[in-house]
């Protein structure tokens, strides 16, 4: 019998590297710890409650429909944590839970599970929440409240609407740009280190860049989409700013406000829903960058990162097909005899 176990017949690949899916996934979760810490630092216990709600929704849904091994690879946990990080601190837990369950259920499990979904599950969950609870998801708590206080009605009973307490909400930098003509915009340093209003994980860009750099250095993340997004947004908004400096914000506030960093580093690099070819990654990133500026400057909404990434997710199969590399030695198109 020992002969049989030594002789294994299987399809390629026959050599397995040390990096497997759970390693990658849990490394991503680890790289999110500083971001999560920053969120807790700025938003207190509310941050933990919202992230826990979203993660529970995602992981429990995955566990209900898949085998235990599928849950242990950590991909559902990433979806949940990322979804929690792009929600406002005052969001009721039950809404975060519903978002996580929808993202994993409709965004991933129905497509066949890990590696086969078209849209980023965390962003799909957030888009669903934005459509279902437009008020709760745009109620941004003020910064500088006592650390241990809840930043909203986090513990609202399921299927009841949350209570909004007057005087505890504030505009985000992007809201200031959009609706108040940029008067009272926080400084770029405040945006970079997170002393502004916004979703839980998006305010402290420095921590997100740190986490991204760690993943890129370990070779676990495709650096092309975020670089393409940052460059495109910087160039596009720089041109607009040069045309009319009073009307359009410069590149720095554009780069460090809203969910651009979180989206570019953690959502646009999802290996499943972004193109696999290097050329495709650049096209993908440039498309997101252009759409983000378009929606932020001329759209009806203050923020467009989520929609831009979802839109380009839909284009990914097409991009993959269009940028398929030529097989070595095969004739180029039109060059056949």
């Amino acid at each position, binding site marked *: 019998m020992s002969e049989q176990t030594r002789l294994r017949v299987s399809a390629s690949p026959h050599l397995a590297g040390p990096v497997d899916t759970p390693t990658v996934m849990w490394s991503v979760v680890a790289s999110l710890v500083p971001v999560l810490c920053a969120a807790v630092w700025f938003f207190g216990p509310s941050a933990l409650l919202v992230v826990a709600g979203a993660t529970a929704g995602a992981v429990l849904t995955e566990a209900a429909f898949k085998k235990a091994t599928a849950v242990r690879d950590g991909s559902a946990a990433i979806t949940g944590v990322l979804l929690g990080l792009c929600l406002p601190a005052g969001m009721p837990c039950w809404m975060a839970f519903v978002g996580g369950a929808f993202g994993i259920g409709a965004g991933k499990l129905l497509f066949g599970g890990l590696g086969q979904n*078209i849209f980023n599950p965390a962003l*799909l969950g957030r888009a*669903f929440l934005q459509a279902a609870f437009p008020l709760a998801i745009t109620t941004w708590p003020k910064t500088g409240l006592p650390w241990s206080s809840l930043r909203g009605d986090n513990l609202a009973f399921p299927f009841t609407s949350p209570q909004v307490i007057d005087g505890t909400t504030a505009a985000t930098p992007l809201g200031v740009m959009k609706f108040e003509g940029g008067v009272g915009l926080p400084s770029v340093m405040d945006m970079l280190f997170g002393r502004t209003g916004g979703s839980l994980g998006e305010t402290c860009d420095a921590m997100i860049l740190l986490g991204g750099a760690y993943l890129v250095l370990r070779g676990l993340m495709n650096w092309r989409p975020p670089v393409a997004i940052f460059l495109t947004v910087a160039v596009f908004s720089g041109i607009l700013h040069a045309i009319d400096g009073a009307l359009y914000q410069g590149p720095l506030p554009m780069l460090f406000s809203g969910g651009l960093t979180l989206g570019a580093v953690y959502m646009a690099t999802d290996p499943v829903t972004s193109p696999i070819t290097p050329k495709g990654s650049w096209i993908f990133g440039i498309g997101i960058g252009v759409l983000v500026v378009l929606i932020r400057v001329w*759209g009806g*909404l203050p923020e467009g990162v989520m929609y831009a990434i979802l839109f380009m997710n839909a284009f990914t199969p097409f991009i993959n097909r269009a940028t398929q590399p030529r097989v070595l030695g095969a004739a180029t198109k039109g060059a056949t005899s």
Partner: protein
Amino acid sequence: MSGLVWIFVSAMFVSNFTLAMFLGLCAFLGVSGKIATALRMGAADTFVLVLTSLAVWFLNKFVLAEAPYLRVIAFIVVIAGLVQIVEMIIKKASPTLFRELGIYLPLITTNCAVLGLAMIQTNKGYTLGEGVAFALGGGAGLTLALVLMASIREEVELADVPEFARGVGLVFIIAGSLSLAFMGFAGLFSAA
């Protein structure tokens, strides 16, 4: 001129016929299995929409001014008749073009996107040029939606989709997700 560009872009993205106004869904769900057929369907759709826009402008200007209550029935009869005639002419004049577009033309004549275009154009009081820009934008939007859907469907054909969701069920989920993604364009350029 820039007014026409806004109408085009807005019809293509912001109020996309399929993904924002939910018109023409039967073609969107039925003929989006392969990219090649989706492209042809989109081309045929655009063609019929432009034809409709011209016909509607003519009807509104010269025939229906005194009898607005006859609009719906007049639109349906005239559009269907016109498309049938054009189809016959194409079949006779250019068999190649007929093979590319022809089989889809009868499908579209009774499509809600076509009647939707006629009604919206009438309600907004578009001029001839604006109407054509609106039809071209609407057609481009339909083509975009069809091609996106087809490329995604070709991709998920290889996926390990659970038994109960295979086929139309998953197509509806994809359509809903696409529609969620298009919500980001809401209000785009409305101030311009």
